[in-house]
């Protein structure tokens, strides 16, 4: 690997720079904005944790690195959102990540779903990425400067995540009979959780009215314009669901979140304040 690393003078927003600017600021987010940021942070954190489960288990070494990259990007988004959210509650990003229990997590249920096989992970990540691309583009124009800055940086990264997933949906859909079957199954499993991403709730709606939050229902057309045509062009069938899941923003979760949190939190809880 090349060692001619370009050490670009970084002006990119980081969790550390956010914490630093908030420490000396009297302009902290109110509880409504902080709770919104917490939901966004939990979405990214839980999905990143799931992607981390692929490390050393992906079908190919190259895909191992690709999924790890995507997961680390999302962990970065989570850290930024949680740092911002925590400033309203006097908590650090670590305190929010490691010392909240299941009902206090506000992530949408899609993100906590088990990885399943590779196709199922790609189905979940594709749906998630379409959502993130539309969400972060909208949020980059938020009246809340910090949310806008975090979203503007994240938007470039999720563009790439979406591209990666689109490539794989096509290849698995148009590959062999077995890869097609698995990709179709992945879509079927994840489809019931897509609707929740675009469901409005009262706290978000009041922030939408202030130009701070992005209306979830406003993101639906972007999903409908991209995903069904992609599925059809990949030789797959758009799933039909008769019921949908949801409630993550209110702390309602599927049975999958508990074990995920147990694994994520065990070390920090067994050794509070440990560092290396």
């Amino acid at each position, binding site marked *: *690997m*090349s060692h001619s*690393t*370009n050490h670009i003078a970084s002006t990119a927003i980081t969790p550390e720079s956010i914490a630093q600017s908030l420490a000396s600021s009297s302009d902290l987010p109110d509880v409504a904005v902080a709770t919104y940021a917490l939901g966004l942070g939990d979405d990214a954190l839980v999905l990143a944790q799931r992607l981390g489960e692929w490390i050393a288990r992906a079908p190919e070494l*190259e895909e191992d*690195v690709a999924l790890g990259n995507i997961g680390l990007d999302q962990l970065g988004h989570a850290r930024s959102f949680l740092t911002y959210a925590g400033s309203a509650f006097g908590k650090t990003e670590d305190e929010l990540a490691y010392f909240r229990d299941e009902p206090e997590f506000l992530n949408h249920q899609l993100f906590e779903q088990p990885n399943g096989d590779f196709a199922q992970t790609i189905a979940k990540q594709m749906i998630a990425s379409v959502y993130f691309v539309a969400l972060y583009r909208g949020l980059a124009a938020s009246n809340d400067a910090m949310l806008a800055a975090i979203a503007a940086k994240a938007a470039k990264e999720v563009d790439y995540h979406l591209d990666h997933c689109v*490539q794989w949906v096509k*290849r698995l859909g148009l590959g062999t009979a077995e890869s097609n079957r698995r990709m179709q199954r992945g879509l079927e499993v994840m489809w019931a959780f897509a609707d929740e991403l675009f469901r409005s709730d009262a706290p978000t709606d009041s922030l939408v009215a202030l130009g701070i939050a992005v209306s979830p229902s406003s993101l639906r057309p972007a999903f409908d314009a991209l995903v069904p045509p992609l599925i059809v062009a990949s030789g797959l069938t758009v799933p039909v669901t008769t019921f949908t899941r949801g409630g993550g923003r209110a702390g309602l979760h599927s049975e999958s979140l508990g074990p995920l949190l147990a694994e994520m939190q065990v070390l920090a809880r067994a050794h509070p304040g440990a560092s290396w």
Partner: protein
Amino acid sequence: MTSPGDSGMRETWPLWEVFVRASRGLSHVHAGSLHAPDEIMAVRNARDLYTRRAEGVSVWVVRAAAITASDPDAKDSFFESPQGKEYRHATYYTESDAVPHL
């Protein structure tokens, strides 16, 4: 001679060589190799594997099997011939004072 891309069918994905250009004005330089099912995924894998630390502004990939290389066993006849032929370097000219910027 075995082709550089021939994996003896042990790999399901072909091998690709990756060339990265560090910045505008420089040439693409060989950075390493990777496996990918096709050229589109090869470029993406190259981005993930070889530009993680802002090493590049452009990436090329080429199937290793498409590269024709010189024969390592023939390196004497291939590369030792220039030795002792210093006249191939234009070092014996004297610079003229009348020609600036030489």
